[in-house]
């Protein structure tokens, strides 16, 4: 009963938050866990980054070309308190269909570190996590060549 009550209490809050979900420190390990097959692309972006939206769109195209092998998750490094601005920007970029997270931690630099200790917070940043457990990180808007190497291996 108690569990149901808690779940029911949360439902409207989740619905009110649209598709954007918080990313707290406790959620990072699940986000980074290798997918069952193919790869997960974690696209880190920021409201204050003019390079980020074209990069998100390029990753969306790549995902759509390989829908079975690539899972794409967008993560805004801005606090989820900026929910409206983040959702509006994702919508305008045609990214609303992809699972989306936004930082929800008192110390955003700590989240950066937990996601990737070798990342200094520059955006855009893409983290590739493959089913075999291997990982790669790319900073900056991806070149066509980099995008090719990001796709699933034939």
């Amino acid at each position, binding site marked *: 009963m108690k569990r149901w009550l808690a779940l029911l209490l949360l439902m409207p809050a989740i619905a009110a938050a649209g598709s954007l979900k918080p990313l707290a420190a406790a959620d990072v390990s699940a986000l980074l866990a290798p997918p069952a097959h193919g790869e997960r692309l974690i696209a880190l972006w920021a409201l204050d980054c003019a390079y980020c939206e074209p990069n998100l769109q390029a990753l969306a195209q790549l995902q759509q070309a390989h829908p079975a092998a690539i899972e794409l998750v967008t993560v805004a490094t801005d606090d989820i308190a900026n929910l409206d601005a983040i959702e509006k920007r994702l919508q305008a970029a045609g990214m609303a269909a992809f699972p989306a997270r936004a930082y929800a931690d008192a110390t955003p630099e700590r989240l950066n*570190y937990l996601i990737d200790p070798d990342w*200094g917070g520059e955006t855009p940043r893409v983290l590739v996590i493959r089913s075999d457990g291997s990982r790669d990180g790319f*900073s900056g808007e991806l070149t066509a060549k980099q995008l090719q190497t990001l796709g699933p291996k034939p």
Partner: protein
Amino acid sequence: MRRTLLLWLCLTVAPVLAHEHMTMAQEPPLGATAAFDAHGRLWLVDAGDGHVRLRHSDDLGKTFSAPVPVNAAPEPIYAEGENRPKLAFGPQGEIYVSWSQPRARPWTGFVRFARSLDGGAHFTAPVTVHHDRAEITHRFDALAVDSSGRVVLAWVDKRDQVAAEAAGKPYLGAAVYYTWSSDRGAHFEPERALAQHSCECCRIALARTPQGGVAAFFRAVYGDNIRDHAYAVLRTDGGTSHAERATYSGWHIAGCPHHGPGLAIGNDGTRHAVWYEASGKPTIWYGQLQPGQRAAHAQAIASAGASHADIAVHGTTVWIAWNQVDAQGDALMLRHSDDGGLHFGPPRALANSTAAVGSPQLLLHDGHAYAAWNTASGFRLLPVGDAP
């Protein structure tokens, strides 16, 4: 009945949860600037509820005066990440404050300025310092006063990028523009370009030269998005300023590093600098700038997890402070050199924080150095040592 209760709870609790998100956004941002005036009084500006706020402390930051609003009418203020309100003093005790004001469209802003001639009791109505009023980027303001009392402001400006785009020409990055006032901030000269192709999202470091002028050190774009740094003296005599490349790390990134450099110039003219790059592992570098060529005595100061370094020099003592993050939270770190930057001692933690932190600042007063650290659990001023 039970079902009705659940429905009622859902309807009433959800707005409360939503409201909590709203209040989170209203916590004051951590962008702040601290500075000692000529008499050793510590001043602090930050932003909250649409106001830049000025406070002072006579006990090294333990207690502060009630805040004085710098701008009487509230307005949006950038005060996060690489943006923070700025504070500087004139030779007759003038208090100068600048900040960047977000406009409606993303990545846009105006550089704002206000002054107090009565020791911080009252401020003039804020003015926009640039003549260009297009709704584009004019932000990441930096403020300094030269030895003649001129008020110098530099900022990141996208007017040339916008013009190039309109003409169908490629243009990487933004530009750095600057202006100055020779009448204690009453009027500002028409702004002029300092350098084309700067980074769009990194703070500009300003420092006074031994000749009394103001020099800038900032992240610039070279070739195909190589984001190294440039150095320039901001001329206020009508002559043209020339920015020269001063770091050669070769970090290629078509993106936003959100990471500007630091600069402190010794009385002997040595340009002590710190900068961040991640061409390999993320690294904070120290070097002595020799514009046009590689920095002398370049050495890695800190690596992964290190960010937002500041630097200060007094005689042959050089201090570097930065934020170092790990899974536990942030530490305020310090290294210092007793031989003018040739060698630095090991890093030591001055303080730790599990709350959010702003970028650290090194302050000098009377041969004593302090690190200013604004955290979500309060402002801290930490002594870091005395010059011998």
